[in-house]
């Protein structure tokens, strides 16, 4: 059996996944109880949880796909573990490449790692490289929240606008990337081009009328599903476009 996917590795992966679920469940219960104290209805909180879960399905499958891309070199278990805790594909790929270079391996992720020492080193580099937020949060988060509390306590109107502006700034970065960002040269469809713009506008095109219908006819139950539905429908548009439009047109990326 491949040492990268032996029973011990699967046991380790299962333990990490269990830890994440238990921790999330703990915070979920605490927040739910506090929500009840604050007078939030069970329906609102239930809708939040269901909508969040639905919303997560497609991106989570995309994360799963990135696990597979790393599996060729590292086996399936280590990428699973790394993308379950803190992980992010761009960090992990960079960390593994850096670890391999640290041991003089030039082939990168193209070839399966057969040396246990290099595999273990990759695990150390990937982990130590990404743990810093967990050191920062216990030291900084309470202070950051206090500072925010002081600003928002003074002027609630500005506080609301400030939060909206911060969200918009974040969303703007991703929209700008879909319109004008260069992608990974080795991945077709990663850069700004026909597909990214088509999908972006399709998502907007589905979301706006759905939102209008919810507001106009006060359809409360539809509100939490408008966003995940728009996202999935936009992905279906991407799928259909890839099948139906001329191949040369679909792969067009103006930013490479």
């Amino acid at each position: 059996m491949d040492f990268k996917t032996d029973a011990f590795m699967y046991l380790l992966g299962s333990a990490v996944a269990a830890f994440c679920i238990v921790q999330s469940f703990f915070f979920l219960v605490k927040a739910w109880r506090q929500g009840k104290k604050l007078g939030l209805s069970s329906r609102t909180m239930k809708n939040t949880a269901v909508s969040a879960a639905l919303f997560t399905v497609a991106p989570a499958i995309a994360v799963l796909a990135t696990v597979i891309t790393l599996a060729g070199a590292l086996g399936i278990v280590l990428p699973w573990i790394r993308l379950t805790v803190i992980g992010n594909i761009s960090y992990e790929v960079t960390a593994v490449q850096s670890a391999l270079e640290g041991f003089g391996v030039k082939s990168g992720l193209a070839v399966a790692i057969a040396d246990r020492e290099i595999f273990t080193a990759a695990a150390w580099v990937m982990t130590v490289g990404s743990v810093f937020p967990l050191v920062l949060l216990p030291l900084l988060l309470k202070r950051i929240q206090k500072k925010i509390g002081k600003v928002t306590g003074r002027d609630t109107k500005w506080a609301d606008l400030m939060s909206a502006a911060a969200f918009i700034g974040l969303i703007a970065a991703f929209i700008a990337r879909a319109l004008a960002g260069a992608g990974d040269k080795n991945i077709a469809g990663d850069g700004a081009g026909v597909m990214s713009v088509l999908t972006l506008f399709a998502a907007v095109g589905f979301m706006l009328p759905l939102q209008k219908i919810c507001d106009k006819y006060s359809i409360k139950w539809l509100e939490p599903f408008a966003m995940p539905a728009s996202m999935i429908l936009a992905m279906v548009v991407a799928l259909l476009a890839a099948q139906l439009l001329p191949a040369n047109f679909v792969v067009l990326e103006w930013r490479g």
Partner: protein
Amino acid sequence: MQRDYFDRVHFWGRISSVTALAVMLGIPLSISLHFGIWPQAAGVLNGLLKIIPMFWSIAVIEVLTYAPLLGAGGTYLSFVTGNISNLKLPCAINAMQNAKVSPSSEEGEVISTIAVASSSITTTLIIAVGVLAFSPLLPVITAEDSAIAPAFKQVVPALFGALGAGYFSKHFKISLVPIAAGVLILLVFPALPVGTLIPVTVIISLLGAHLSYKHTQKKEKKRQNQA
């Protein structure tokens, strides 16, 4: 915010962060113990030196940028399970928007935590089930030539298009500047990673909103004086 809940979230958040740190460091430690192999320190350090300056600086920026948006509970959880900008944050934003609560409110803190926790559980389960049950099939589904691969490549534009539509329709005036700024920056630096672009567009958006707010306030004062 009820002081006791806020303090409790930080208390449990600190414990969970330290526990998560121990669990994380336990992963390579367990692998080393299991294989009985301790890689050469020089090789590991060599690898780490290339990534730590970038990764750790980004960590500082991410903590400062995302914490005000996610609330305390959401932040502690998100930084353990990762995939923040592409998953946890949009999820929390969407949830607060649906529940019509502000992130700076007590209700926003609760809704954000519920959304992030549900999202984390779902992601963990999907990845675990996918790896354990479907590992033989996954390479076929996610292969470059698979029929559904084009859809998964566009998950980010789909996600942020849907999320953006909701926000931009409500705050159209303050949305144009950060998008235009982002596009302009990418026209000059096309390969700029989105993680680096986010703090820039967030700052530009905050400045634009502040100017717009001051301008509206001035107008209102003028109107009140005239009345």
